[in-house]
């Protein structure tokens, strides 16, 4: 994944972070305090392989992420990871899916232009002939009340992670 560059942002008042991913690499991300509201009625649908590499992205995914389909396919799903999200949330996703179970949760995603959008996400393993071949994820418009409950919780988890050097 390429580092983000100020020229791709929807504004100039950005914060800069370096995210380190489970896969072992790091990326410079730039974030704006601009929320893109989730459109009514749409579902974002994507599929990844077992390593989390995007293999399918629907039009709603393209529209909300700000990336073209060609830019998304072949990239790790963590291209959407926002620095306000605690790492433990993503560990929970992978641990749950590894057990063959469905995962659900509220996620703050980072757009290509530095803005963010909240989703209620769910993901399931794609089992074919008894073997997990990848994952399907669907994101939908979240309850604002639930999102507001998540904001301080995620901030607290992030603070703990930073404090413990995770």
């Amino acid at each position, binding site marked *: 994944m390429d580092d983000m560059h100020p020229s791709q942002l929807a504004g100039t008042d950005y914060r800069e972070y370096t995210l380190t991913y489970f896969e072992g690499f790091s990326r410079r991300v730039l974030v704006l305090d601009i929320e893109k509201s*989730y459109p*009514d*009625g*749409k*579902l974002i*649908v994507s*599929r990844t392989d077992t390593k989390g590499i995007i293999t*399918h992205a*629907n*039009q*709603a995914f393209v529209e909300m992420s700000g990336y073209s389909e060609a830019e998304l396919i072949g990239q790790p799903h963590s291209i959407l990871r926002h620095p306000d999200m605690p790492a433990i949330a993503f560990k929970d996703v992978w641990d749950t899916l590894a057990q063959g179970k*469905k995962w659900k949760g509220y996620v703050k995603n980072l757009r290509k232009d530095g803005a963010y959008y909240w989703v*209620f996400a*769910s*993901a*399931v393993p*794609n089992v*074919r002939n008894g073997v997990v071949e990848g994952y*399907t*994820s*669907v994101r*939908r*418009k*979240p*309850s*604002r*009340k*639930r999102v507001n409950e998540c904001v301080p919780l995620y901030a607290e988890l992030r603070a703990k992670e930073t404090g413990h050097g995770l």
Partner: protein
Amino acid sequence: MVYNLTVSPDFSPEHIAGWYVFNTWLQRKLGYRIHVDLYDDFETQRQAIADGKIDIVFANPFDAAMLVRDKGFTAVATAEGQRDEVVIAVAADSPVRRVEDLQPGVRIAKTQDPDINLIGMILLEPADLSLENTVAQAASTYVLVAKHLIQGRADIGFFLKEAFYDLSQVIRKNLRVLVTSEIHVVRHALLVGPRFAEHGESLRRLLLGMPGDLPQGPGVLESLGFSGWESLGEEDTQFMIDLMDTLQE
């Protein structure tokens, strides 16, 4: 051997005759005896499937998941260009302008259509509504869903999008669309059961060739309300089932 064909009970009533016309055409083309069994409700149809009575079914996506994963059915084709989308409507004079205006205790008029009800509830999540804090108002048809809304017995109604726009203009002008789903990948599918599996490929070829099967093919399609059929492969079907899985509790 006589095979049995059925159609998801959410089919449009105006196309009932079309499925009999289709079956006549199909028997002539395939050279097998096929009997059409249409069920009034989902439970009776599911029981018939559980009893092994069904060989060919035009199934809604919710039932398709069960048929493919638990009953060994395989997908053959889907109606060209048709997708299952949901309309949530209110009475034209309702004060509700957006989903977030809805409050716990809201009365929902709905049919038994499982995928429409599932997607409909998902569209209500932004208002923190669920089965636990809403009241269901059962209706056997989409026309009755509309009637519940117009007569004030329900606050919102769940419709298959196609069925909503099939309502007469007189009815529709008394309703207002609150939200429409845009999912694009959920659709009904024609599935064949284990007893019919060996004829699945022949059936697929026949269906894909229907628009060019003159003189009957185009007329039969028209009676079903379809422009044609699209092939539905194993992976496409599994993808749709995975998607339905992600949406269920």
